[in-house]
């Protein structure tokens, strides 16, 4: 119940800042979403820096079946051609609709910074009420350096010209967040 409330508020707040949210139940749903979204945007490449080998193979098969290309690390070799980045998130913050993503890996950084669309999935049980509720986690990470921790709240934005909100100036132009409901089993 608590997870549900936090998840609802999280999604509402994330959508306020132009993220798209959806609910999923398992990784198959996630993969389906990623493929569909990429096709819809006429993209043709996907990166997935934090999947294990088994899942990665699954995604690669799905990509192939859909005529998409799954790019392999290091992503520095692909800085110009990443359409969709699929990542998980370590935590989320309901108060601000924020994803917390340990980005120590350069591939995660490049994927989430240079892609056109970032799709992230998060388990509903990993949604915290606010940033201070994650202080212990963050402090732990900072105390075992090196580290690069990212809070991501909506897609890249600017209001530098006449204070008109424009999305997608340097980072991803779209952010989709898939909230994975707890598996009842």
């Amino acid at each position: 119940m608590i997870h549900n409330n936090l998840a609802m508020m999280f999604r509402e707040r994330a959508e306020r800042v132009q993220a798209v949210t959806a609910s999923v139940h398992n990784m198959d749903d996630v993969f389906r979403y990623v493929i569909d979204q990429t096709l819809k945007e006429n993209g043709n490449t996907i990166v997935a820096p934090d999947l294990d080998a088994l899942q990665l193979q699954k995604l690669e098969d799905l990509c192939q079946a859909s005529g998409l290309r799954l790019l392999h690390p290091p992503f520095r070799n692909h800085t110009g051609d990443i359409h969709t980045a699929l990542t998980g998130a370590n935590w989320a913050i309901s108060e601000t609709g924020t994803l917390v993503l340990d980005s120590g890996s350069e591939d995660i950084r490049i994927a989430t910074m240079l892609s056109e669309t970032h799709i992230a999935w998060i388990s509903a049980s990993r949604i915290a009420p606010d940033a201070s509720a994650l202080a212990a986690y963050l402090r732990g990470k900072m105390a075992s350096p090196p580290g690069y921790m990212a809070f991501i709240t909506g897609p890249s934005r600017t209001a530098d010209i006449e204070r008109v909100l424009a999305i997608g100036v340097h980072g991803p132009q779209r952010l989709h967040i898939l909230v994975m409901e707890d598996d009842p089993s």
Partner: protein
Amino acid sequence: MIQTAQDMKTYRKKIHKALGNQFLRKALDNFASSYKASRVKAFEGIDLEALRCRIADNKDHALPHLESLFQQFKEKAEAAGAVVHLAATAAEANDIIAQIARDNGVRAIVKSKSMTAEEIHLNDHLEAEGFTVTETDLGEWIIQLRHEGPSHMVMPAIHLSRRQVGGLFTDVTGRPVDLEDIDRMVKVARKELRPAFLAADMGVSGANFAIADTGTIGLVTNEGNARLTTTLPRVHVALVGLDKLLPNLEAALDILKILPRNATGQALTSYVTWITGAVECAASSTGKKILHIVFLDNGRLALARDPVFSEALRCIRCGACANVCPVYGKVGGHALGHVYIGAIGLILTYFYHGKNNDRAIVRNCLNCQACKSVCPAHIDLPYLIKQVYGNVLKDDGVKPAKNTILSFAMKNRKLFHGMLRMASVLQKPIVQKDAGVLRHLPFVFGKSQDFRTLPALAETPFREQWPSLRPRISEPVYRVALFGGCLVDFVSPEQAVALMKLLTVHHVQMEYPMGQTCCGLPAVMMAETETAVEVAIQNLQAMSPCQYDYILVLCASCGSHLKEGYRRLLASKPELAETLKTFQSKIMDFSSFMVNVLKVDPQKFVQTHTSVAYHSPCHLCRGLGVTREPRELLRTAGLNYIPCADEDVCCGFGGSYSLDFPEISAAILNQKLDHVESTGAEILVTDCPGCVLQLRGGMNQRGGRVRVRHIAEVVAENLKPR
């Protein structure tokens, strides 16, 4: 490239030009109103006051220990693979950064937004050393291409229109850019800057936080350019003011909760990045990022030890002090700052960029307290601005003539009041008797004062009417003293007469202690602290606070100065502490006394339902924190109060401010009067004789039909005849 006026003559020219920029005026107007609304919304459900106090406390605890926090940070960050530097001056920081670039064979540099880099003019230095520097924050890139400084700390290009940006991008790219399509322009920047990120050898960022106990820096951004700047190039240099040091993550999270909300009304920016040490980086030969963190002193350590000014280092660079500043709203950041702009800019410029750059701009403060009311770190910005102004005068060793005259006259009450009486005789040939205003202004005021009529001095000041007016109430419910202030006493005694009438009806014995003199606020405004202290002591003794239940004021500025200003002025006089405490506890504004003490009854008033608009004086709503009572009193007194836009925005008077900066004063006044006229109210009511002077003078000059009255007058007029 940034050229800040160093004398008043040049500065007035710059202001005149800024005021003529219609786009700027409109853009800043829209911004001011939308900002206020979005800020309120952003803080819904948050105990803002507790958060502000915590931030001020955290900063105050950190500031005396900046050196040890620096040592701790250095130890942690270096253990994590960073190299940490401390630059004593701007030049030293520039040299360190250029040396890092040379040592690493850097040619191209990308930068994300950093006010600290602006402070030391880093780009100029690096470019002179032969490096290519590209700003990547959209606003910063725009102003870099235009060779300008930022006009706002958060929105550096707010002074430019889409058409100007479109034209600029057309020139830069050599391809036509639609001059209306902002989305397109943003995509142009995305496309143009991507290769710069990929080609850069070094990224320079600032930092919003430096967390000492883990050696972590935190970056708060929206565009994502700071992430790219800190990720793609093999070298990362973070330039950080020493004041950004915090003991721990918790202190940073507190600031993070308030910074974006107070800056732009966002709950959180798109990106917050926490970097600890040298992370992996395939572009570097070691596979690790080459990370240098350069801390900048440039006067901060000395500032941190200053008993008065250390408070300025609490600043978290949200820019809110500019957002709500009525002067900023009229002239923009290029005319209200040097590198740092807005209220905090008027202060920091003196310390970081010298008195010459601050000399003129530091005078451009109305003391309206709007900045102070939104400062997330509770910095008393208006107070510090006057203190800095005092320093500038002291450093220069030359004072404006009005300072010398005012100080000379004010220190001797009898002389001062004698001069006012003399002036009231001398003005006779130019008084338009039926209207009580000066037909034309004495030559000393000059033409620029034509935006309002000035009232004539009263024929008989209140203090001379008093002996024959003084009512004697048998068995009074309260004994109160009126602190009149110069304007009530010598310009508008009718306001005091109105008060007397109301008090008499309510069986309150009023007294008017004759030894009282000017409250001393004008001296504070002119940075004449010594004079301000002298008159404060005179008033404290003259008002004999023990003898009265309350000391009433009809002037919000006097009231707020007596109540709050005296505390600071007399802090070094422990022998007066007891009297001062009693004095302050008895000061009360007119409306609060009527509503909260007398609890006036609507039955006593004729319910005329005359429509009135209300102007909330700065020193009443922000200085004394009184907002409900005047509005309630208007309703109780049978008037139909019509809310008006921006009721709590300054009228532009600011005492001697309107003499120094008549054009800005007029612009602020006219906007206020436009708002008032659009309500359709018959009367504009306020509770400060200074505001009355300004508003009535402006209304007269434009031939408006709205009458301007002091609240005591309209309330007294509605009393039922006995």
